[in-house]
């Protein structure tokens, strides 16, 4: 059922929710969390759809905070809907005028008592999510560096410097299948990792995070190379015995390489936002591993080790093998790692200069 409220107040919205639930004949609430989706008029439809898909796994009250034009009289319009295929409740809150600056006052009466609050910024997020007024309400703040529309290459690095427990990014969530396969590869072949290479499209935040993670875990230098994508196209762990590698040129099917064994195909499709969100909501405690990776980024600045790749290396697919070989050689010499250490400072300076 759907209730439209124009020029309303948050209290009226709360009353409408209660009424809708009563009318549906189910006074019981099985909802486990409140999910606040901070979005705009252009993006709210997709975001709310993704959120409602997640709601079948995590029954929740979804509050879509749509910030409209900041000029003029403060005004709140709301759209309350429950039971549209989702198991929770959905409210779209359109704020305009000066109200745009006070979304917390709208959201506060609508939070589920005592259960966790999660804020999700589907596209652009504040530079410091934990300090954001809506972000402060939440136990978990989900951003998506890959969906940022502005200053995409630095957004992750900026956020990394201000990282607070409870912050998480979908660029990290996208990595779970990659990380799982790499870990499984090392389970099977427990070799000493001497270096690693990640290839991805330019400015891919997931690639930065993957490299940072490998750096903290294996304590080796990690190369990031630019490829034509889509997304991450390959990652290789180098060792004296050869590479443990995953190569995914088409964004769907990857080749899994283990030293001394035939290559094997493995499905590694790029996941929908709803799936990523569902994974995020499965755990609401702090993700220490992500924090470690982010701290590496904060120290070095994202893309610090990114070097302009030579033409032969930049094309994905058949040439990746040669690209990997050259980098292995480089890793074995000390000169390579020195270069690596110098690089971050430079970029930091550059960023400062730009700011």
């Amino acid at each position, binding site marked *: 059922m759907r209730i439209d409220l124009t020029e309303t107040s948050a209290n009226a919205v709360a009353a409408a929710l209660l009424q809708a639930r009563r009318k549906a004949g189910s006074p019981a609430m*099985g909802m486990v969390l409140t999910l606040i989706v901070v979005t705009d008029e252009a993006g709210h439809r997709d975001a709310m759809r993704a959120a409602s898909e997640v709601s079948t*796994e*995590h029954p929740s009250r979804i509050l879509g905070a749509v910030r409209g034009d900041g000029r003029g009289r403060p005004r709140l319009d709301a759209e309350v809907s429950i039971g549209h295929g989702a198991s929770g409740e959905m409210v779209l809150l359109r704020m305009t005028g000066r109200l745009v600056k006070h979304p917390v006052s709208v959201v506060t009466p609508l939070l589920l008592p005592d259960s966790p609050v999660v804020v999700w910024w589907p596209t652009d997020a504040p530079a410091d999510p934990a300090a954001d007024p809506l972000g402060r309400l939440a136990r978990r703040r989900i951003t998506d560096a890959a969906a940022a529309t502005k200053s995409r290459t630095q957004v992750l690095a900026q956020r990394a410097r201000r990282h607070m427990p409870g912050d998480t990014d979908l660029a990290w969530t996208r990595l779970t299948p990659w990380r*799982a396969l790499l*870990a499984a590869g090392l389970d099977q072949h427990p070799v000493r990792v001497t270096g690693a290479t990640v290839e991805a499209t330019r400015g891919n935040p997931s690639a930065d995070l993957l490299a940072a993670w490998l750096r903290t875990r294996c304590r080796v230098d990690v190369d990031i190379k630019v490829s034509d994508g889509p997304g991450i196209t390959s990652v290789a762990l180098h060792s004296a015995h050869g590479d443990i590698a995953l190569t995914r040129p088409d964004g*769907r*099917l990857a080749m899994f390489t283990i030293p001394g064994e035939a290559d094997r195909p493995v499905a*590694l499709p790029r996941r929908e936002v709803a799936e990523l969100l*569902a994974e995020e909501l499965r755990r609401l405690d702090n993700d220490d591993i992500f924090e470690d990776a982010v701290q590496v980024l904060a120290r070095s600045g994202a893309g610090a080790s990114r070097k302009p790749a030579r033409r032969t290396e930049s094309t994905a697919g058949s040439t990746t093998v040669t690209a990997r070989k050259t980098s292995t050689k480089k890793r074995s010499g000390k000169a390579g790692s020195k270069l690596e250490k110098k690089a971050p400072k430079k970029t930091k300076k550059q960023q400062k200069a730009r700011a």
Partner: protein
Amino acid sequence: MTVPENPLRDPQDRRLPRIAGPCSLVLFGVTGDLSRTKLMPAVYDLANRGLLPPGFALVGFARRDWAHQDFAKVVYDAVKAHSRTPFREETWRQLAEGFRFVPGEFSDDKAFANLARTVDELDEARGTAGNHAFYLSIPPKFFPDVVGQLKEHGLATAEGGAWRRVVVEKPFGRDLASARQLNAVVSDVFPPHAVFRIDHYLGKETVQNVLAFRFANAMFEPVWNANYVDHVQITMAEDVGIGGRAGYYDGIGAARDVIQNHLLQLMALIAMEDPTSFDARNLRQEKQKVLAAVRTPDRIDLHTARGQYAAGWQGGKQVIGYCDEDDIPNRSSTETYAAIRLDIENRRWAGVPFYLRTGKRLGRRVTEVAVVFKRAPHLPFTETATEELGQNALVMRIQPDEGVTLRFGAKVPGTAMELRDVNMDFAYGGAFVESSPEAYERLILDVLLGDPPLFPQHEEVELSWQILDPIVSWWAERGRPGQYPAGSWGPESADEMIARDDRAWRRP
């Protein structure tokens, strides 16, 4: 160089799923219903969720003149028709390279030699590294043949760090003697830790939640005993008849088919003491302890009931009676409904009867555990006010509509003080595209990971038969069971049985 620990693993990193190591699953009984509707789709769904190792292989063994691609086609059709997650070409390609088929009879030496070669070839080509699980989705009468052949051809043992496991499905025998026999056959070849008995009920999220519910919360455990609990009802009702399972079902009956495994396992989870940890050994110990404390009624005639469905109407459809089903003898004495009362002789449960019932062609399909509490010792209301007030109950809904219901009294709105029972419901999230796994997915993955907590060991199986044997043999001496109309909630004798204890069945 010493082998370092895997630096990418960290107990704090709870996002990383456990992916099974390189291995293969060898499926006996490829053409069976279970294989096509459950096992093959489960394998695909696991792959789709990224939980199978690259290089995983699925080997089919059956008496069919098939090539590898014919087998692949069978799997393809089964996956298309029954898989839970969406079909993805890339997942299919990952799996398809690992399909093998070995034709032959269970007694055919050549076929098993061929299987041994196939397995070796997989180790070579797919890197399965000698790790193979044999899933016996076949009638138990073939177990000796197959298990013997596996031993004969060196398939039952592996070298180095590799493993061999065998998976068997219920029924684990038809009484204590046959269960022991069956176990002797299997354990002669495979060590106990390599034998996985699948009771798919234990793979269900809701069943596992029984443990979470009991041991993660502070507010239920204090009342979880004879001081507060009046009795417990465990129900598994099916709306369907025996369908195509006539050959298996007749002579087995409801008690052996369902109570021995599903219901007694559920009862053990509801009644057991808290395990010191959730590892397989501790869980098993507690389950065994409580099953060993179960006492069958002295008067089987008074505290058990059975029945057989007669023709009638179920859910708006006219259906035939059990004896009219295909391949069922006209005067079959197999019961399709069974209800028994059990008592647990320990401090926690003394005097609290557990009523277990199951049946086919009942009112609707439902599995639940209802813990019914005693009445409040004193009610400061007039008798008329509490006339409609029943007993508090906590119901764990196992399937469908998974969740928990709490039933308690509340005041009826209005001026007079009048009390009536109300329900408070908690519902689990529905099946999300990728996340809520089927029981078989969980169990197959656990087999491949070698994770045994959810699999009953033969001690538990034997204890269950010890509980059930006196009852089914008493029934066997007394001819045919009474009948109940299809679509009802069972025979009258079942209502009388529980009425003798001044109680009544819940309508689930």
